[in-house]
């Protein structure tokens, strides 16, 4: 479980996070939603320690991230996997080398064990035959799946995804969503996904927090979100004609 207490983050004069409290539950797909520029990515990067927060606390199973020394933080990071918005695959390495990178660095596994693990992870994301290719040889959706395979290679306790559906067609986006939900249950991870894709919210949102202008404006489940009367949520969720129609039909 990850507990976030009153975190603040500014860049110069610009205050991005203005005191967010949140809890992300074990074995669930926790979603952070909000409009572009609302502070979602800064929030997610603060969770993993890529941004140092100005105020507040982030606790991993009761252990405050800010109180960890370099060695402890490194150790915690080996329990994290992250899928970046632009995938962030190492373009000079093959797909197999990308997936086994953290294993080579930290695990002490033999070459054949690493190869087996890479094969397992790539099969898990339905990409069994791409190990020898380079990232530039794959499509956007395939690269996203490789990024997921790399993120789960170390069997992480925590999985963070920054807009995993951005730039993907709706069908591929659903495949990625389902995959993330399945591996969360299968690996028993605490998964935190940053998105503004309403399909994801409804399909896989076990626990959702809505961020508006750097503050938590709402929290609930994928079911709750369609029924809430919260004006901020209604404004965000029913901004498209399709969802407006769904709401009218529901009424």
């Amino acid at each position, binding site marked *: 479980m990850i507990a976030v207490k009153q975190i603040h983050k500014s860049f110069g004069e610009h205050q991005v996070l203005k005191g967010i409290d949140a809890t992300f539950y074990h074995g669930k797909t926790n979603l952070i939603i909000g409009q572009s520029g609302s502070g979602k990515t800064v929030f997610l990067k603060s969770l*993993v320690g*890529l941004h140092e927060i100005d105020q507040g606390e982030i606790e991993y199973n009761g252990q405050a991230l800010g109180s960890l020394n370099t060695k402890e933080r490194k150790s915690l*990071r080996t329990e*994290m996997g992250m899928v*970046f918005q*632009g995938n*962030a695959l190492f373009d000079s390495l093959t797909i197999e080398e990308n997936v086994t990178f*953290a294993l080579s660095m930290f695990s002490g596994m033999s070459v054949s064990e690493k190869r087996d693990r890479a094969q397992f992870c790539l099969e898990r994301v339905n990409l069994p035959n791409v190990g020898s290719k380079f990232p530039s040889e794959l499509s956007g959706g395939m690269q996203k799946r490789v990024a997921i395979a790399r993120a789960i290679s170390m069997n992480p306790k925590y999985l963070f995804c920054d807009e995993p559906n951005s730039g993907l067609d709706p069908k591929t986006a659903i495949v990625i969503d389902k995959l993330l939900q399945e591996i969360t249950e299968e690996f028993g991870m605490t998964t935190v996904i940053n998105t503004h894709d309403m399909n994801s919210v409804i399909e896989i949102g076990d626990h959702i927090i809505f961020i508006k202008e750097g503050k938590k404006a709402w929290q609930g489940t994928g079911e709750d979100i369609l029924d809430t009367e919260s004006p901020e949520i209604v404004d965000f969720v029913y901004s498209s004609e399709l969802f407006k129609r769904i709401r009218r039909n529901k009424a």
Partner: protein
Amino acid sequence: MLFQKWILSLGRYMQLLGRTFRKPENFRMYYRAFMSDLELLGLNSLGIVSVISIFVGAVVTIQTAFNLDDPLVPDYYIAIATRESIILEFSPTIISLILAGKVGSNIASTLGSMRVSEQIDALEVMGVNPASYLIAPKILALVFFNPILIMLSMFLGMIGGYLASLGGVMSVEDFAYGLTVDFNAYHVSYAIMKTFVFAFLIVSISGYFGFYVKGGAIEVGVNATKAVVSSSVAIIVSNYILTQLLLV
């Protein structure tokens, strides 16, 4: 204001060096990175260093011959002047400046692209120290290979001079004799000492500008240019300081 900015940059540079020289997470992975950087930064520079050294050696010989066109000055003095110019200044300093352009822009743009595409963040989230993994093997690779390149440049520079003498600038015998007259081996040691420092400056300064890129493709280009300019200035300034310390 400008001075404050400069001090701030120097502080961040020192901080980055502190992060760079930490204990590696896995020696085998760092060794692999070192070998790959050795090829990228060292072996791939052999061609340009060879071509420039031969031609500059030839040109220095011709120009010296042109300027020492005096019946009272023996011809072998041309070879002495060529040898000393190449050993003391051309090979260690000018070749390092050329490497600052070639290798420095490569390092800054590679690290900059990795920064903007979040590959450096990905390393950090995995628990890898990106400064150490990405910069330390490059520093070691160039510090190791730069003296080899410079020695090669000295040798080829003199070959260039020899080829110029074959072209009729002076007699080949005088040139060969001049290369050995009053030869001081310390000058070679002094040149090699300079190249260690220059190699360190090229990689660490370019690494700094690449590592801290903020923005997109344009900023990567801007920082690559800054890397080349700053490392060139650092080479020139340190060249003066080292010369003062080691030769005077």
